[in-house]
């Protein structure tokens, strides 16, 4: 199976879980951001070259369902994936704890970035104290989901990326 097909499967799994299970299953009223998780982990494993592209597509899929204009999540995820890919390349050595910490921080950043860009394009009420709470919970939950998501992304990228 080629990498694009595997990635498509990951996108599909993420969006289905997001639209079904995590409509009801929420922690403190906040759902994990699975597409953001895909983008961040892609940034970590695929680096700053391919990671943003994978993140962009993940954001685009999520944008189709979000009330904000198409492209807000896509550009946010691409930027965060690029940042994670660049950081990982320059500073980090593979370790589970680092991966979980990076995913948590970067996922929280996607929430803040999404809200800021959303406000920039005219959506009201995205940037407030609630945004900080949501970003904190998303960071924690996405970090907790990393042990499940990371092997899947490794599996998807294994054909195209030798790490």
């Amino acid at each position, binding site marked *: 199976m080629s990498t694009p097909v595997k990635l498509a499967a990951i996108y599909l799994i993420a969006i289905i879980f997001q639209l079904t299970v995590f409509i009801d299953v929420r922690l403190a009223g906040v759902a994990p951001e699975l597409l953001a998780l895909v983008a961040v982990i892609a940034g970590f494993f695929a680096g*700053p070259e391919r990671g943003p592209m994978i993140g962009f597509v993940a954001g685009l899929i999520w944008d*189709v369902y979000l009330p904000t204009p198409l492209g807000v999540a896509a550009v946010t995820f691409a930027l965060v994936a690029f940042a994670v890919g660049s950081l990982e390349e320059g500073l980090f050595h593979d370790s589970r704890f680092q991966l979980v910490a990076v995913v948590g921080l970067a996922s929280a950043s996607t929430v803040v970035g999404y809200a800021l860009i959303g406000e920039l394009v005219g959506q009201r009420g995205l940037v*407030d104290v609630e945004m900080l709470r*949501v970003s904190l919970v998303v960071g924690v939950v996405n970090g907790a989901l990393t042990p499940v998501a990371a092997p899947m992304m490794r599996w998807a990228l294994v054909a195209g990326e030798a790490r």
Partner: protein
Amino acid sequence: MALAQRIGRSRHRLILLVLTAITLLTLDLRSFGPLDSAQRFVRDLLHPVTEVAGTVFSPFSDAWNAVFDYDDLEAQNAVLRDELDALRGDQIRAEAERLAFQRLLDATDITYLEDVPFETATVVRGAVGNFDSDVITIDKGSNSGIRSGMAVVTGAGLVGRVDRVDVTTATVQLISDSNLVVGVRLVDTDEVGLGQAEPGREGLFKIDQGLDWPEDDDLSLLPAPGTVVVTAAASRYPAEIPIGWVTVAEQAVDGLSLEVTVQLSNDVSDLGFVTVLLAEGIDQVPLEEPVPGPIVTPAVEPDPAEVESEDG
């Protein structure tokens, strides 16, 4: 050298992605038809899959909810809310009818559900993300005659407007969303204005455009608390749909206009069923200040004596 090249290449790619996103944003904000169709196609394509997956995963979701004994309570709550909404709507409709009759207006009764064809729909899900708590998805779409902009109501009044429409589902922007501007009429004073939900203040709606502060600061001219608020005839929705009732009327910061806080009659936080009024709406009213029109000088009748002297 190779690393520098790689970083340069990845930056170029990122710039391309950002430019692509800006293009998509611009096209989407301008409601570019093919882009809307493409999004609709993706949602319609995935809808059967998510529906099946939803059924498969529902025991897990129920189990999660059952931890808080939520399942039975939710069903009972939905029934009670529907009954309560109906009662609130009846009360407001009766009040609006009485006042309208007193003013000898023709439109004496609020019959928005009787005059307009409608479609009843079930709410299939609430928010999908973490920032769209003011959006619901219903199980009726374009194949049921639903179009973007149509009004969505319950017995207690306006719920919101249809936003995105797919073949079998549609999303509704709730009245609790501060981005949704509604043209309203105060039944008591017959004034019309524009208002929207107050961000961060659940259940409250503020009318902050179109109402003037009374001349000579005559407070007796202010709308009394409890005054019923309904959709205005000139709004994008059918007229006389209940919105709520006035709780506070106060002077705006500019000192010239009036700001009215309204308690919404509809609790949109936990809806089970809604009714879509099958009357085409119009596009969103912009939030920006209206562009002032040209200054029109009052027409003055010419003095006949002056005209005569000019002719003579």
